[in-house]
């Protein structure tokens, strides 16, 4: 398969009347899909010639021709759900396998009144007008190629709507399972999260690979947070080692509202998380944080853009990475402060630890500032484990492997601390611990000490 045919393969396989596609009867959605594929065709697959893709090449998409998911792929046998949060109990949980919602694993949970959680298909059936007003409203017409592709192909996803003033205490978990099929499949989740005034919710997304097959997940999440509302948005990307995961999150934050996110990337042959936050109202705040742990020849790209569009908005961004073997990570973080956004307070930090010769980090922290009364800073560092600290631990009788693990763990701690919810922080910390080399099991006894 040559380079040029691959994006066209998506275009060729585009069929807005394919059976099983959600919202097939909705004319507006059909138009949206057609516009999407046309724009994608015009833009083509991103190449490193584009500044935003300077360090990430979509090689797997060039090499493999991905097929749309069939019912069979979606109904693959599943013996357990790799839930991120222990003991789901009464916790609401949605489970998708290869992009198909699996009702038998769906836990409705005890959600308060005024909370509507559905898969995309049901939302398009039950509240098409509501869906019409939100789908594509945050990505915009001039969205990037892969968002356009998702718009054209969206075949799965969920919608969460929280009415004004409703506070959802329990975290809502959404599990996307990839793999479990021997064909290279592609699925395109489109998620909507809309919080009314003063509402609060926590969403945990778990993209996880089972089995070994190559697959391609291209997800787009649109989030609208109304005045005074707060969304905690946590995500673990643990796709299988041949998977390609490209996710885009577009967020609009209104006056005095908060968007708080954490993305932990620990899998995937190639992954990219693109977060774009617009702070549109006074006093809006965004916390965009994450950690990436890569090994083998994995490649992880975190690209963020936080736009300050109103006065007295603030943002905080902390990304930490650990790279082993021949893995590679990219961090591109941009903070834009518009003229109107006087009194902006922005802070960005990206630190990467290289564990092996051969690992590579490319960081591009950017500040673009047009207002003068601002306090903005960014920092970026790369380096290896501090030999002095390692010596200190070893001199106290801690074996080297464990000492290294402890140092990596404490290094990541600064980022993990940004997760406000204690249970989720613990779940994420456990993910990190299990990523570490085997000696980590020893480290559990040290953890609480």
């Amino acid at each position, binding site marked *: 398969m040559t380079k040029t045919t691959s994006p066209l393969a998506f275009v060729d396989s585009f069929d807005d009347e394919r059976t099983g596609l959600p919202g097939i009867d909705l004319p507006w959605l059909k138009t949206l899909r057609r516009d999407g594929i046309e724009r994608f065709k015009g833009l083509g697959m991103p190449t490193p010639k584009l500044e935003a893709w300077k360090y990430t090449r979509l090689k797997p998409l060039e090499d493999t021709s991905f097929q749309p998911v069939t019912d069979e792929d979606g109904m693959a046998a599943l013996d357990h759900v790799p839930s991120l949060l222990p003991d789901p109990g009464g916790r609401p949980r949605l489970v998708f396998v290869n992009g198909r919602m699996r009702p038998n694993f769906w836990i409705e949970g005890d959600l308060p009144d005024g909370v509507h959680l559905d898969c995309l298909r049901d939302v398009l059936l039950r509240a098409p007008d509501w869906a019409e007003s939100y789908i594509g409203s945050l990505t915009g017409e001039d969205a990037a190629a892969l968002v356009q592709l998702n718009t054209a192909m969206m075949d799965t996803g969920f919608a969460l709507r929280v009415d004004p003033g409703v506070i959802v205490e329990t975290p809502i978990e959404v599990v996307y399972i990839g793999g479990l099929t021997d064909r290279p499949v592609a699925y395109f989740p489109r998620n909507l999260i809309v919080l009314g005034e003063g509402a609060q919710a926590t969403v945990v997304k778990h993209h996880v690979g089972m089995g070994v097959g190559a697959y391609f997940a291209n997800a787009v999440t649109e989030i609208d947070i109304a005045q005074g509302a707060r969304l905690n948005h946590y995500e673990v990307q643990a796709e299988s080692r041949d998977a390609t995961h490209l996710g885009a999150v577009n967020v609009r934050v209104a006056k005095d509202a908060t968007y708080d996110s954490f993305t932990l990337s620990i899998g995937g042959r190639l992954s990219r998380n693109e977060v774009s936050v617009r702070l549109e109202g006074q006093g809006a705040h965004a916390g965009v944080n994450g950690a990436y742990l890569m090994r083998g020849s994995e490649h992880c790209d975190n690209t963020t853009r936080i736009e300050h569009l109103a006065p007295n908005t603030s943002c905080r961004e902390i990304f930490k990475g650990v790279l082993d073997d021949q893995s590679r990570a990219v961090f591109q973080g941009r903070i834009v402060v518009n003229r109107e956004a006087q009194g902006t307070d922005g802070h960005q930090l990206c630190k*990467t630890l290289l564990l092996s010769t051969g690992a590579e980090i490319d960081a591009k922290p*950017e500040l673009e500032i047009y207002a003068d009364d*601002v306090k903005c*800073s960014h920092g*970026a560092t*790369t380096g290896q484990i501090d030999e002095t600290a390692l010596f200190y631990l070893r001199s106290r009788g801690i074996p080297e492997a464990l000492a290294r693990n402890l140092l990596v763990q404490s290094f990541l701690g600064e980022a993990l601390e940004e997760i406000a919810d204690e249970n989720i922080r613990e779940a994420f910390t456990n993910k990190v611990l299990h990523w570490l080399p085997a000696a980590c099991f020893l480290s559990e006894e040290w953890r609480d000490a």
Partner: protein
Amino acid sequence: MAATTETLAQVQEMADDKYKYGFVTDIDSENAPKGLSEDIVRFISAKKNEPEWLLEWRLKAYRHWLTMPEPNWAKVGFPAIDYQDSYYYSAPKAVGDGPQSLDEIDPELLATYEKLGIPLKEQEMLAGVAVDAVFDSVSVATTFKSKLEEVGVIFCPLTEALEKCPDLVKKYLGTVVPYTDNKHATLNSAVFTEGSFVYIPPGVRCPMELSTYFRINAKNTGQFERTLIIADKESYVSYLEGCTAPMRDENQLHAAVVELIALDDAEIKYSTVQNWYPGDENGKGGIYNFVTKRGACRGRNSKISWTQVETGSAITWKYPSCILQGDNSVGEFYSIAITNNRQQADTGTKMIHLGRNTSSKIISKGISAGHADQTYRGLVKMSPKADGARNFTQCDSLLIGDQCGAHTVPYIESKNKSAIVEHEATTSTISEDQLFYLRQRGIPVEAAVALVVNGFCREVLQQLPMEFAVEAQKLVGISLEGSVG
């Protein structure tokens, strides 16, 4: 933190201050016809009596240039350049006879220098600075040559070096900035007309600061200097470059190339004060300053240090860089950039670490006022072989007024686990550590801020040789206090 009213007042004052050095001297130029073609390249080469290999090199560059797209990645905007609407060669007529002393030089030219304050006639004022003054592409006066010759230093116009030491020129020209490098550098390779050549022999510490003043004078003449400095083993040289240009309405293109080569244990210090005409308040006129400056630390323990104070030009596009090839080599970049009115500056540096234990330091201060836009764009690259390499980068930006912009675009690429890269950038903040340190010693916040800011700016200014520091301080002129706080 908002800028103090005092600072604002001073910036306003500066904005209103008419460009002091804006005047045109009326001397007949011996121009090549307008436009750019292979014939013009041949014309320039013939004028300079150049050897065949150089003409071939120029032509190769010209042909390559035709195929290159205009670089568009920098955050600057300007109308497309009509390369055919410019003169590529002009020389003051006096050069035909070759002035033997100051007396022979066109008095009008000397008057120009006096207005600009180059003390050709009062050399004692400069005490130890040899001036190779460039007036529209051709060197008209060189001083202190004998003293330099005593120790074996070659400091002369590039054209002259082609006669004096063709082997050195041939060996090093284009080895740091190849003719294929970028559109502007390639254009320079094809049509460069003048520039300086410096060779410091092994073990020699150059006895004086070397200095060249560049001027742009004849209307519609782009200047294409090419400077080549070679510091042989265990040598040291400090080179100063400064510019002011007469006021005019049409934009002028200035695409210079500077190549530095430091061999084992050698050190080159290159300082610039750039004050080309920036255009008027509405952005009319002004120089396009598209410069490629690059140094190669080829030898072990070599060092290249760039210091720049950029206050002029309508558009600055400049990234003095260091290629740290030799083990333990050191690269430094100190920069103060000030943009006002409609000026645009996209400047920074590249530190390419190739050798073991190489280290680099980047200190950049940007001050943006009026409607100006300024970008720091830098690259720090650690190659897989750069074991133990180290970089520290600090970029501070200050915005004065709400119509300007300041941007920071650093690229950090590390392929070596033992390499340490630290980058920090702030807009209107002082490091808490510094403040804490001063405050715990009983210094009030206000005074501490002033002290830190002064100290920090001085750190960059101090990198300049004395003769320049005065001029630079004057140019930086606008209040330093509040520039970080």
